[in-house]
């Protein structure tokens, strides 16, 4: 048994070293992006724009949402990311007066963050109709819709619910339409194409706008907030890499809605790589040389596997080393035991994204917070099974152990732990399988692993890419389970596998 712990400790030490050597060096610039295509393309563009002149840039793509990126920017784990003014005003600096750009800049500066001038496009909601429809009825702006009460409209469910969505749009423009249904966004485009509906909600940079040849009605009463794309970057970047900041400013005003939706379309509809599209853009618009490095399947798989293994091995190993003693403690002291089991149980109920976001200010993004979260999630099954295994031992056996003169620690080591081993191993197996699965969520905070292709695959509606993450994750779960089954044979005493003869 001792050997197992020694082996685990060694494993932890080596994988810990690997994990830290993976993190970028201090001079590098780290770009972040959210897990939707436009953000990833902009992230790639930013990466090309700031790198060069001895400055290397890396791109942590597909991070799990505004909060993750904002916290990581404040913490310094990323230096730059593309954001929208509407999001900054309504989510990040809510409650602060930011209604003009100078006010917005000042509020950001207080947090050590700077903002570029708008990139040139506004990605907000708009109402789209077919070009023929617009021509036939003479539609140019949203208020023109007032004349056509018989129009049927199909909106995404989010748009039907949002404060700035359909309910307030209807009030602002006094729109008379009664035939309004909730639809999946992709289906809405097809409904419009087939003529089943006359108008839908769109994001102004959706690739489908060009693809389906839509006409966007002007928001003549300025109902929708502006979501001008801007670049947020840390104030200290100007000192660290002045040239990089200079090249960022060259991006200002260079991307309009048409260009952005064309780039979105090239990725989403034509299935081209974000890096390739971004490289084309910087070469033609900024005259910067850029080469998109296409990573092959094997290299990609190897990287996800390595990242995933680091997450699983460190977090699971640490959980075993910590949870078994915790379970022993819980089994030995009834009151304390209830407390320990209670706390570990509560930890399990915290949603993973919330836990991740909570840990970013302490640990940043990437491997460490993911490992801590996985560690916490792995505790419960092991603690509970260790506790149950020890508490389930026949009292007569415990009495005998004490009666022959074994001290409590010796009794634990020689008698109790071996007898509880089957239950402990079952807990470890459960933890391991949960851990391998949950580790895919690590991609949301830039920890990589099999979650990366899954996340990208979902975003691009690319099944092959989803499977590239899902299949190895399933295989790894089975392999880990099998490994522990073998280990179980080694550590569960043979005498426990016998049936009594009478």
């Amino acid at each position, binding site marked *: 048994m001792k050997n197992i712990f020694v082996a685990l400790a060694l494993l932890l030490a080596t994988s810990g070293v690997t994990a830290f050597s993976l993190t970028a060096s201090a001079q590098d610039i780290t770009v972040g992006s959210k897990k939707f295509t436009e953000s990833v393309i902009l992230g790639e563009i930013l990466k090309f724009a700031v790198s060069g002149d001895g400055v290397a840039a890396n791109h942590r793509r597909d991070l799990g949402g505004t909060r993750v990126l904002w916290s990581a920017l404040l913490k310094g784990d990323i230096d730059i990311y593309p954001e929208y003014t509407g999001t900054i005003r309504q989510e990040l600096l809510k409650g602060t007066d930011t209604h003009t750009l100078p006010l917005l800049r000042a509020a950001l500066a207080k947090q050590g963050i700077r903002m570029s001038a708008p990139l040139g496009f506004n990605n907000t909601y708009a109402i789209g109709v077919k070009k023929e429809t617009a021509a036939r009825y003479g539609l140019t702006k949203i208020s023109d819709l007032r004349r056509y009460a018989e129009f049927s409209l199909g909106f995404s469910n989010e748009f039907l619910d949002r404060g700035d969505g359909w309910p307030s749009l209807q009030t602002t423009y006094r729109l008379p339409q009664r035939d309004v249904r909730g639809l999946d966004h992709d289906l809405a485009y097809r409904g419009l194409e087939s003529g089943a509906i006359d108008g839908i909600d769109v994001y102004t940079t959706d690739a489908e706008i060009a693809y389906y040849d839509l006409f966007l009605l002007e928001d003549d009463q300025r109902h929708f907030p502006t979501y001008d794309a801007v670049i947020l970057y840390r104030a200290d970047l100007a000192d660290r890499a002045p040239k990089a900041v200079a090249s960022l400013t060259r991006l200002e005003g260079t991307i309009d809605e048409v260009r952005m939706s064309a780039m979105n379309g090239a990725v989403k509809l034509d299935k081209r790589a974000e890096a390739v599209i971004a490289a084309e853009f910087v070469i033609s618009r900024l005259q910067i040389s850029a080469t998109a490095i296409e990573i092959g399947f094997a290299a990609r798989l190897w990287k996800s596997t390595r990242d995933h293994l680091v997450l699983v091995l460190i977090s699971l190993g640490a959980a075993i080393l910590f949870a078994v003693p915790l379970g022993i403690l819980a089994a030995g002291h009834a009151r304390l035991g209830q407390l320990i089991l209670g706390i570990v149980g509560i930890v399990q109920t915290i949603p993973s994204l919330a836990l991740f976001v909570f840990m970013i200010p302490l640990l940043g993004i990437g491997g460490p917070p993911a490992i801590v979260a996985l560690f916490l999630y792995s505790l419960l099954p092991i603690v509970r099974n260790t506790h149950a295994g020890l508490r389930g031992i026949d009292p*007569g*056996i415990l*009495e*005998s*152990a*004490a*009666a*022959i*003169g*074994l*001290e409590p620690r*010796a009794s634990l080591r*020689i*008698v109790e732990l*071996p*007898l509880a081993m089957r239950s402990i191993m079952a807990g470890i197996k459960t933890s391991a399988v949960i851990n391998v699965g949950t580790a895919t969520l690590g991609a949301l905070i830039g920890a990589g692993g099999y979650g990366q292709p899954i996340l990208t695959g979902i975003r691009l509606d690319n099944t092959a890419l989803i499977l590239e993450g899902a299949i190895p994750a399933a295989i790894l779960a089975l392999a880990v389970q099998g490994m522990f089954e073998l280990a179980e044979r080694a550590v569960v*005493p*043979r*005498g*426990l596998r*016998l*049936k*009594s*003869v*009478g």
Partner: protein
Amino acid sequence: MFNLSDISKSFGRLRAVAPTDLHISAGRTTVLIGPSGCGKSTLLRLMNGLIAPDTGRITFDGEDVTAATAPSLRRRMGYVIQQGGLFPHLTTRQNITLMARHTGWAAADIETRLQSLTDLTRFPRDALARYPAELSGGQRQRVSLMRALMLDPDALLLDEPLGALDPMVRYELQTELAEIFRTLGKTVVLVTHDLFEAAHFSKDIVLLRDGAVEQRTSMQMLLAEPASPFVEKFVGAQRGLTQAPEL
């Protein structure tokens, strides 16, 4: 060897041992007997310090049995619990020699001691490699006894060592054990609820009732001069058990 003065023990509201004095003399066998639940097992646990008395004082060989002294004193008293209490994950050999190995005996000494114990209990040596689950009930009892005797203790506490056995094996082991105890000349405290078994082992029989000593004497005297109607009833019931119903 054991001296219990004015000890009592309650579990919650239930009084398992009433204030009691009990002296166990060295070098001979004393039998504790009484109906189920009268506190026999509790008394043994008090003697080897597995539980602490609420009142009173217990000494073993002149030393106080307390939480602090119990673990080391216990190595000088072998104890066989009611259900045998063999460790299922260890082989017979490992069960018997566990404490000797734990306290650092030399391998050769362990072998010699094991040899003499298997001789003494007439235990088949090829069964030493087996696990408790692979032994018969009688063999398990012998193993429990060997484990209790391994460190050559001054005293032996046996809680119904033959309780779970069928009558044939039981009778055979009774004879053997009595013989072993005579050879060893150790202080033995043996619990049973069978008066005839008690008589088999000793003339010093302690009859317990509701956690207190009701009468202490030989079987003949219990039959001839019961100290109370309870003793008379207990003895009568035991006799009735051995008489065939009249047809």
